[in-house]
């Protein structure tokens, strides 16, 4: 932002530029043409609208939580209500926003285009996935308006099966159904990436965004059903009195934890991997360089997916698991930090000696790298057996996963939305306003969650709405930060909405990026390509792009 005035943005002459006559947005008209569409791009937009709604709904709960924590006294809401606030915040943000965020919107929109296909392999299943997601969302909303749910997003047994009188079954059903939406998205991606690649598009010519989503899809397909069965058993225990997790009948509540975290640890990677894919694309484009160590970054995605299945017990160290297996899981947790670090180092080496420009997506990418590194490093603290005993169930862990999920994933999501916005809608967002919002969210984010690391380290437990007065200063800082953060997230909705009509016309390739998606018109045609591309270049081959541009000029001239 400061210092540099250079930019790679290359827009067509606004006096003569026009939007394409025909594209996927105006190909058909009316609400029904959207609700029954098989077009992956339109389904991506449907998802984008729905998850934005759920994001702000979950954000309202976060705001109420922070408002309550402004003072040490339990003054704004009653204890039960507070429990419902953080439960609904967690459930909505994780299952209805973070899990589908990048894959179902950007992934849905871009994966077929990036590999040169006309659509995903199963368009109808793609649409079904959105309907399942909406059904899950509506059930969660039903649970919300009929009295809420207060199990926390983890549905811990026997609390959820025996001691609570809230809408556990409704919410669990909602998540079960939304889970199948995620399974179908993942399944569709895997088949598409295996089966629909354009001629010449070999595995190692695919953009890293595709690799990252492929790895996340594997986790969706193999992990989510285990969450599904554990939720089914919780529901059966509540309704019919089965005793699989019920200690009074001989069941083991820890078994629920094992099954739940068998999904929910990999779920962290379902959420973060596609974000890492976005960052690879953005870093490469705004450094004008091929990603350093392309193969290492590609394989590190798959390695994260694989290792992700071997570490879940680190969420259970204080719950009475055996010390020996806790030791094993603690060591394996250290292992999973390696592929994430590989990515960070390779991005850093890509930046080195690159011609870096600071457009908004790049600002978000820098925010991601910084915040995700802090989130990841504190994750290593928490994975270490001795530290975990002290820090778990405190605000330290809250701060840790918000650094990964919000600081990492949400920054990547916003970066990706800004990066591909001109492709999705054919118009640019306002540059200075968006830079302002990126900086605002970065400052607001750190102000919100940095104090929580300290609070947690000092011993403030999570999930209580009253606290000793000596913690108030840090809590006030955190609430103030949350307000700034809220502004940082609200701004993009306003100016992105504005840009749909008034933004500058972007042209095909405003960033001069190399991906196949940038070689077609913006917004794309319904069938993406007028003819199936034949790929002869690697991903991020800027020389190829320069040659191609030159060639185009000569043919026109």
């Amino acid at each position, binding site marked *: 932002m400061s210092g540099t005035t250079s930019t790679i943005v290359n827009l067509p002459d606004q006096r003569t530029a026009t939007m394409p006559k025909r594209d996927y947005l105006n190909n058909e008209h009316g609400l029904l043409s959207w609700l029954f569409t098989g077009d992956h791009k339109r389904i991506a937009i449907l998802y984008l609208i729905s998850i934005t709604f759920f994001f702000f709904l979950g954000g309202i709960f976060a705001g109420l939580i922070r408002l309550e924590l402004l003072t040490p006294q339990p003054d704004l809401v009653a204890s039960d209500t507070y429990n419902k606030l953080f439960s609904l915040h967690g459930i909505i943000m994780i299952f209805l926003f973070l899990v589908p965020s990048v894959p179902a919107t950007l992934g849905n929109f871009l994966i077929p285009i990036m590999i040169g296909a006309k659509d995903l392999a199963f368009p109808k299943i793609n649409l079904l996935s959105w309907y399942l997601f909406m059904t899950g969302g509506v059930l969660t909303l039903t649970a919300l308006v009929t009295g809420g749910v207060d199990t926390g997003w983890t549905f811990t047994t026997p609390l959820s099966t025996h001691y609570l009188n809230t809408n556990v079954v409704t919410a669990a059903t909602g998540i079960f159904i939304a889970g199948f939406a995620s*399974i179908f998205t993942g399944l569709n991606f895997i088949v598409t990436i295996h*089966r*629909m690649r354009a001629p010449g598009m070999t595995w190692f010519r695919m953009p890293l965004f595709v690799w990252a989503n492929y790895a996340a899809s594997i986790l969706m397909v*193999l992990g989510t*059903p285990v969450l599904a*069965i554990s939720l089914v*058993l919780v529901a059966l225990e509540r309704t*019919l009195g089965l005793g699989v997790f019920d200690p009074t009948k*001989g069941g083991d509540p820890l*078994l629920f934890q094992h099954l739940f975290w068998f999904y929910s640890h990999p779920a962290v990677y379902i959420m973060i991997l596609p974000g890492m894919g976005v960052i690879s694309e953005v870093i490469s484009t705004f450094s004008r360089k091929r990603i350093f160590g392309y193969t290492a970054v590609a394989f590190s995605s798959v390695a994260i997916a694989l290792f992700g299945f071997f570490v879940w017990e680190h969420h259970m160290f204080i719950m009475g698991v055996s010390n020996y297996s806790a030791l094993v899981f603690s060591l394996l947790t250290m292992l999973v930090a390696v592929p994430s670090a590989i990515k960070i180092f390779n991005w850093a080496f890509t930046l080195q000696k690159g011609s870096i420009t600071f457009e908004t997506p790049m600002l978000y990418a820098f925010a991601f790298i910084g915040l995700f590194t802090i989130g990841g490093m504190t994750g290593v603290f928490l994975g270490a057996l001795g530290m975990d005993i002290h820090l778990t169930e405190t605000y330290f862990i809250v701060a840790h996963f918000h650094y990964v999920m919000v600081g990492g994933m949400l920054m990547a999501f916003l970066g990706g939305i800004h990066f591909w916005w001109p492709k999705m809608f054919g118009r640019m967002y306002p540059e200075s306003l968006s830079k302002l919002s990126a900086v605002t969210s970065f400052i607001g984010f750190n102000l919100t969650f940095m104090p929580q690391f300290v609070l947690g380290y000092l011993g403030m437990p999570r999930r209580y709405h009253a606290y000793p007065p000596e913690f108030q200063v840090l809590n006030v800082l955190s609430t103030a930060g949350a307000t700034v953060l809220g502004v940082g997230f609200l701004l993009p909705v306003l100016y992105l909405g504005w840009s749909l009509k008034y933004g500058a016309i972007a042209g095909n390739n405003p960033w001069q990026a190399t991906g196949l998606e940038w070689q077609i018109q913006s917004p794309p045609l319904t069938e993406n390509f007028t003819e199936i591309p034949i790929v002869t270049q690697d991903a991020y081959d800027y020389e190829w792009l320069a040659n191609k541009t030159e060639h185009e000029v000569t043919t026109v001239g």
Partner: protein
Amino acid sequence: MDNALVASHAHTHEEEHEHVALPQHCHHFETEQQQREAGTFGMWLFLLTEIMFFGGLFFAYLLYRNWYHDAFVAASNQLSIKLGAINTAVLIGSGYFMALGVWAAEVRKKGLLVLFLVITTVLGFVFLGIKYVEYHEKWEKHHIPGEHFDVSEFVNPQAYGLKETPLAPDMAQKTQVFFSLYFAMTGMHALHMIIGIGLLFWLIWRANRGEFSSGYVAPIENFGLYWHFVDIVWIFLFPLLYLINRHPGS
């Protein structure tokens, strides 16, 4: 569009069947073979999901069987080995006719295809009927977990004319875990059967219209994968639930 594309790229490989003309060919696939292989692959990925779905239940079974072995033996011996074995045979038979149905579709025999699918469905119903008889017996004996669960038969088997070793009251309580798993596992299995039978009705209706006897067999083939998967689950459930220890006194 499709014709143009297929023509523009040289094919060294000749298909056995003509493949551009079929109406089921979706525009975004270049060839029908690509479409068919994508379908099979997608179905298998879905079955991976199913493996992990039942996997959670199978793990729970493994754990509690080791923890409460005596209770599992006593409770398992309450199940009818005869009905269980008959049901296994019925389900294998149903799978056999499903497999024959795939063959009939591939060789384009419409009448045989419909016949085989109908037999598959009927055997599915027979399985569910026998399952109902078994569930009903558990209901009458108060062996359904929950408030009305009754352990007296396990604490005092002689009074019921059983040759089982009596269980201590706390171990007898653990038979509830067995029956919880029994109902969860067979219930989930039965739910898959019911969904499968629903799909079979739809497939029979379509097969009867001749949709699958002109070279387009993907729906039959992929449904067959699902139906066989449900078979496999039962193939494991039968020995695990019915045959834990059938030689009392050992």
